[in-house]
C-alpha cells in the first residue's frame, strides 16, 4: 500500500497531469458537441441523419475520443522518472523494481481510467446538450451509454499501462509522447482504413469495437461491420495490457538507472 500511496502522490501532485485531464475533457466535449452539427449539415454525404438511432449512437460514441491522454499519463508517470532523475530516489526507496513497476502500472491504470471516465462523461453531456437543440432526434440505443462508459474504463486503464511500458522502453519523454501521437492519430487509422482485417486488432479498432456500434459510414472513417465482437475486443485489449505490463517490468529489471 505504501508504494501505491507514493505513486498516487506522484500522479496528483504534478500539475501537468491535471492539465492532461482538462485537455481530455475539452477534446471529448468539443468533439462530441460538434458531431451532431457536422452530421446534420452533411447527412446526405454521410448517409446518416439525426433522426436515425445509429447517428445518435455515433455522436455519443465520439465521447471516448480522448484515449490518447490516458497513454500520455502513463508515459509521463514512467519517463518522467528518467527525465527528472526521480527514478534514483524511487529505486533507492524501493529497490525491488518489479514491485515498484507493479504499483506504478496500477496507478497508471487508475489514472488512465479516471481520465477516460471523466472526459467521456463530459463528452456525453456535451453531446446531449447539442442534440437538445435539434428537432426530430432519435433516441439513443439502450446500451450505448453503458457500453461507452465500460469502454472508457477498460481502454483508459489499459492505455495507462501501455503508456508506462512505452516510458520504460523510450526514456526520452518527448520522443515517447510524439511517437505515440503519430501512431494513434496517423498509423493506426490508416491501417484501420487500408487493411481492415489487420486494423481491427489494433487499439483504435478494438476500442471502437468495444462500443458495440453498428455503423457503416466509411465517409466518417467508421465501418463496424468487420470489427471484432465487443467481448473479444475487450479481451484482446486486456491482452495488450498484460503484454505491455510484462515488457515494462522486464525492461526495468535489467537496465541500470542513470
Amino acid at each position, binding site marked *: 500500500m505504501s508504494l501505491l500511496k507514493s505513486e498516487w502522490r506522484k500522479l496528483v501532485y504534478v500539475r501537468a497531469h491535471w492539465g492532461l485531464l482538462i485537455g481530455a475533457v475539452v477534446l471529448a466535449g468539443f468533439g462530441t458537441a460538434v458531431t451532431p452539427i457536422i452530421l446534420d449539415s452533411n447527412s446526405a454525404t454521410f448517409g446518416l441523419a439525426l433522426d436515425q438511432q445509429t447517428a445518435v449512437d455515433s455522436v455519443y460514441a465520439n465521447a471516448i475520443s480522448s484515449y490518447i491522454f490516458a497513454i500520455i499519463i502513463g508515459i509521463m508517470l514512467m519517463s*518522467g522518472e528518467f527525465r527528472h*532523475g*526521480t527514478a534514483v*530516489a524511487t529505486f*533507492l*526507496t*524501493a*529497490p525491488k523494481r518489479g514491485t515498484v513497476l507493479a504499483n506504478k502500472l496500477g496507478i497508471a491504470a487508475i489514472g488512465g481510467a479516471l481520465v477516460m471516465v471523466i472526459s467521456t462523461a463530459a463528452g456525453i453531456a456535451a453531446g446531449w446538450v447539442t442534440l437538445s437543440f435539434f428537432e426530430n432526434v432519435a433516441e439513443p440505443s439502450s446500451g450505448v451509454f453503458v457500453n461507452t462508459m465500460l469502454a472508457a474504463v477498460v481502454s483508459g486503464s489499459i492505455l495507462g499501462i501501455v503508456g508506462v511500458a512505452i516510458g520504460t522502453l523510450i526514456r526520452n519523454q518527448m520522443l515517447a509522447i510524439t511517437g505515440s501521437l503519430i501512431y494513434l492519430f496517423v498509423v493506426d487509422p490508416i491501417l484501420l482504413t487500408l487493411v481492415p482485417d489487420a486494423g481491427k486488432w489494433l487499439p483504435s479498432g478494438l476500442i471502437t469495437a468495444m462500443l458495440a456500434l453498428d455503423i457503416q459510414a466509411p465517409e466518417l472513417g467508421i465501418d463496424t461491420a468487420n470489427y471484432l465482437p465487443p467481448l473479444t475486443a475487450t479481451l484482446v485489449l486486456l491482452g495488450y495490457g498484460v503484454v505491455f505490463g510484462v515488457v515494462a517490468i522486464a525492461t526495468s529489471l*535489467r537496465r541500470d*538507472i542513470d
Partner: protein
Amino acid sequence: MNAAISFTNLVKTYGGQNAVDDLSASVNQGRITGFLGPNGAGKSTALRCLVGLAAPSSGSAQILGVPYRELENPLSKVGTVLDSRGFHPALTGRQNLRVVAAAASIPEVRVDEVLEMVELSEAANKKMKKYSLGMKQRLALAGAILGDPEILILDEPANGLDPAGIAWLRKFLRMLAEGGRTILVSSHQLAEMQHTVDDVLIINKGKLIAAGTKEQVMGPDSLEDAFLKLTGGSLS
C-alpha cells in the same frame, strides 16, 4: 571492527572499458570514510553498484552483509545522496519528500523535522526548480536522513556549494557523525575532507590504490599531497 560496507572484486564494464576494476575495500562501522579519486576514477559508478542502481559486471558490493536490494525498508538503514537530481522540479520540497516518505512508510511529521534540520522549512512549499544548487543539495540530504539511517552514502555532496554552503555541510556531517553513523563520502574537496574523515579510500582508473586511516594514508603530508602522489599528480 565490523564492516558496514564492503566491495568484493567489484567490476563494472561500460563499452568494453572497466569503469570499476576489481575493487575490494571495506568501510568500518561508526567511521567517516572519504572516497577519493580523480574525475572518472569510478567513484560514482562504484557507489551506484553499491546501492543497486547499476548491476555489477562481476564481484559484489554489500551493505550490512547483504546487497542493497535485499535490505528490508532500506531508507531506515541507508541514506543516499548521489547528485542534486532525484527530485521532481515541479513539486515543492515538502511534496518531493512526502512522495519518498509514503513509499518508505515514514510518518509525515518526519518530513517537516528533516526540512528543519537542513534549514529548508521556509522554502518547504517552494517548487524545487526555484531552489538554488545549495538548497537542492540540502533537500537531497534531507531525503537521505528521512528514514534516520545508520549509514550515509554521499557522492560529492559539496559539489557546487559556495564557502558558506561547504561550512554548513561540514557542520551537518559532524552532527550526523556524532550520532555514531557510518558515512561514506566522495569528494574533491581534499582540504575539507582532511578535516572531516577518519578513514580514506583512494581509487584511480577504477582500481583501489590506497586504503586505511587518514593518518596511515597521509603520512607526514597533507591529504592533498598524498592524493597527488598516489594518483600521479592529477586532480582531473
